[in-house]
């Protein structure tokens, strides 16, 4: 009989979509926190991000990190008119579900739940996939996001028409295009530079 081990189990990669908080481990070396230059800190935009291995890895090229981060913040946080924040986060979650980024989907499904107060509907997107039938507006947001994610791109006039028929103005549709397109950027970084891990 062996002794009971007191060591924590090794972190494991999640194999399902979840709204739980996940960790993320880099496959190549981030800039150590103590070694960040002033310019790299400017690239982080928000200095709290120095705690994140992901952002410290991207800090190896600080100028593109800074521009990426400022675009990200405006696309998702600028709530002056346009698409409500819940639907922007839904688009991010749908793109992540389509590309298969379990980490990105976890973060943005949580945000979509927070802003929409519809956690169960968001969970259905994660559980059933992007073909889920929720309601006309959410279905249309998910369909448009998935069509923009496909290669070759499948987004066309029929998607715009459906979104307009559901009451979205052109600024809201442009916001959706930006949110879905941006997650095609974010997913590729998270998926190719490291991997998610289940928190102990």
């Amino acid at each position, binding site marked *: 009989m062996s002794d009971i081990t007191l060591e924590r189990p090794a972190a494991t990669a999640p*194999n399902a979509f979840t709204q739980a908080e996940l960790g993320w481990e880099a*496959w190549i070396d981030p800039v150590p926190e103590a070694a960040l230059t002033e310019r790299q800190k400017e690239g982080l935009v928000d200095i709290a991000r120095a705690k994140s291995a992901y952002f410290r890895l991207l800090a190896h090229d600080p100028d593109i990190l800074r521009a990426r981060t400022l675009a990200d913040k405006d696309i998702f946080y*600028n709530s002056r008119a346009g698409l409500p924040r819940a639907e922007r986060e839904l688009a991010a979650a749908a793109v992540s579900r389509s*590309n298969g980024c379990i980490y990105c989907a976890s973060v943005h499904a949580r945000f979509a739940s927070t802003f929409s107060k519809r956690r169960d509907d968001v969970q259905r997107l994660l559980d059933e996939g992007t073909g889920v039938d929720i309601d006309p507006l959410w279905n249309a947001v998910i369909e448009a996001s998935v069509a923009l994610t496909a290669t070759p791109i499948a987004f066309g006039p029929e998607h*715009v028409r459906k979104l307009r028929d559901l009451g979205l103005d052109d600024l809201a549709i*442009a916001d959706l295009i930006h949110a879905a397109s941006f997650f095609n950027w974010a997913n590729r970084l998270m998926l190719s*530079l490291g*991997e998610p891990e289940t928190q102990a």
Partner: protein
Amino acid sequence: MSVQDTTDILDRLAGVVPGSALDALRRERPQTRDNVQASYAALFEAPDETGVTPSERLAVASFVALLHGGVPVAAHYLDLLEAHPDGAALAAAIRNQARQAAGSGPYGAYPPGPLSREDVAGPVFAVEGADRAALGERLSAALAHAHRLVLHPRDAAAADLAALQTAGWSTAAIVTLSQLVAYLAFQIRAAHGLRVLAA
């Protein structure tokens, strides 16, 4: 005024005419507009600081755009590439490789478990034949990475970054390369989406 009069890259690729309704719409989000442009400038116009040469950047961007089948975007990067010394030969090899590598995405496998039933098989790309000599080991490794990110990003693994390192890519250069491919995935979709919205 025509689309040729704008220096904004996304306007040019999306066909946004100065003074049009879509131009006004983009200017409703100046921080987005400015930083999408600043991202392009950081990747393609600023002096290289991470060890990825201008022609390498344009070669990878051309390949990524061709894989998306987006004519105006691919033409933009191929024209810039062809203006470089040795650019015409690189562009020819890139065009040839992109024809062989084109496909439909996203595909790929999940970590074994409940999502395995959603796994979609597809090709893993590598540059072969005479083009491998023309492009060199370093750029050939970058194109394999770019193909994976464009078409089957969920297949990415730690070993892929080790392969890039073996081919001469430093950590900082891998970050730049990944940002470049990922930014193009954004830029091509945003340009396509805005073009459809304005039609």
